[in-house]
């Protein structure tokens, strides 16, 4: 298969950012109150993702290793500002108001930083741009599907057209708790199907998958990612406790980490 087409297939199906890797949960939960809101958020994120991947890939040999995270943040934040201003000017007013604070918050969306770290920093600009397109379309599809389900159950409508009479709405699904419940069902389904994801693999399983060259889900290496925060915190506390008597094995390990 053509390697560019392969990136798009990879983003939509094999490593779908929402359904498989489970990145960027904040916008997924917050902006899927209706299909059109989910779609709008997906498109905004896609735009940022394509250009951030392309720029970071183009700059990958110039940015020094040690300051790469701040450099990525500046690139991403500039792009988000551009998208925010464009949406303010051209997007429908209702949509812009509904997305509100979540548009500037694309800056801290793990998908964008994750793709920059995992893909764009190691590949050519054009290939990275296609990776951004694939991931973006995958994210947009996922958000639209979740939004569609929540809108249908919660407000009885499809893209704003009411098809189920008022008496049969389950209003909770368009409100905050509904988002958690939908996501719970989604992750349960994933566990059931044993799909690779950040949430149902242990560290060893991830390493094994990586060796086998299969999609390993999220590797949990991003600085801001919390999915493995518990591990990090416990390890640090352990290190700190062991730091006082200065055991050789532990201080060796700590040195290695730095």
């Amino acid at each position, binding site marked *: 298969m053509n390697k560019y087409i392969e990136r798009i297939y990879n983003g939509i199906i094999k490593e779908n950012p929402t359904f498989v890797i489970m990145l960027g*949960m*904040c916008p997924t*939960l*917050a902006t899927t109150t209706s299909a059109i809101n989910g779609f709008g958020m997906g498109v905004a994120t896609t735009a940022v993702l394509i250009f951030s991947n392309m720029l970071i890939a183009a700059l990958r040999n110039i940015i020094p290793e040690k300051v790469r995270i*701040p450099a990525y*943040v*500046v690139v991403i*934040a*500039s792009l*988000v*500002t551009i998208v*925010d*201003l464009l949406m303010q000017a051209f997007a429908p007013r209702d949509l812009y108001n509904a997305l*509100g*604070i979540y548009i*500037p*918050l694309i*800056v*801290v969306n*793990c998908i964008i*930083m994750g793709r920059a770290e995992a893909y764009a920093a190691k590949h050519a600009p054009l290939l990275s741009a296609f990776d951004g397109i694939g991931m973006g379309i995958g994210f947009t599809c996922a958000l639209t599907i979740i939004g569609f389900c929540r809108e249908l159950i919660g407000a009885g409508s499809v893209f704003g057209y009411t098809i189920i009479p008022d008496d049969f709405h389950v209003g*909770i699904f368009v*409100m*905050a*708790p*509904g*988002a*958690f*419940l939908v*996501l*719970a*069902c989604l*992750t*349960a*389904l994933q*566990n*059931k199907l044993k799909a690779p994801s950040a*949430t*149902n693999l242990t560290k060893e399983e991830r390493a094994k998958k990586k060796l086998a060259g299969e999609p390993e889900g999220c590797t949990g290496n991003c*600085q*801001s*990612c*919390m*999915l*493995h*925060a*518990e591990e*990090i*915190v*416990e390890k*640090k*506390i352990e290190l*700190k406790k062991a730091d006082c008597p200065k055991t050789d094995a532990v201080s060796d390990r700590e040195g290695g980490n730095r």
Partner: protein
Amino acid sequence: MQELLLIAVGAALVNNVTLSQFLGICPFLGVSKKVETATGMGVAVLFVISLASLICSLIYDHILVPMDLAYLQTIVFILVIAGLVQFVEMFLKKSIPSLYTALGVYLPLITTNCAVLGAALTNVQEGYGLVESVVNGVGISAGFLLAITLMAGVREKIAENEGIPKSFQGSPIVLVTAGLMAIAFCGFSGLI
């Protein structure tokens, strides 16, 4: 005074940052296995959000607005927050080691937490002044501390329960719990 109280209660309970705004979901799900670590995380977030609200409000009112650069808020805020967290970490390490032992582990994890940026942006969007911003920041983070501590308490009990269906073990049951907590927090909506 009454207005400030309304802002604080509104931010902490009515529009709870995690359970109704979905900000800071990652630490909420990631660091809530034990009450002890959850509280540590909550207090660290409280510290950083309060400070970030103060600094970002000052920068917005006295640098960005007079220079007509308000559209740069996203870039400026994220860089200020990242720098602030680094600075706070160094400062605590040097000057207040006891506080650093308690919070130091969590600080680097908060750098790009969306709740911090979310708080700074909300302050600007609502047009809050300096005092209101800080009160709003404290309210938001108090809400986060409350939610994550409650969640950790529930999760400690869940861990002992063996009746959970296999596919719901792990994060799905945590999300269901979060959903139920969110329903409970909906009850606060009549408060203001």
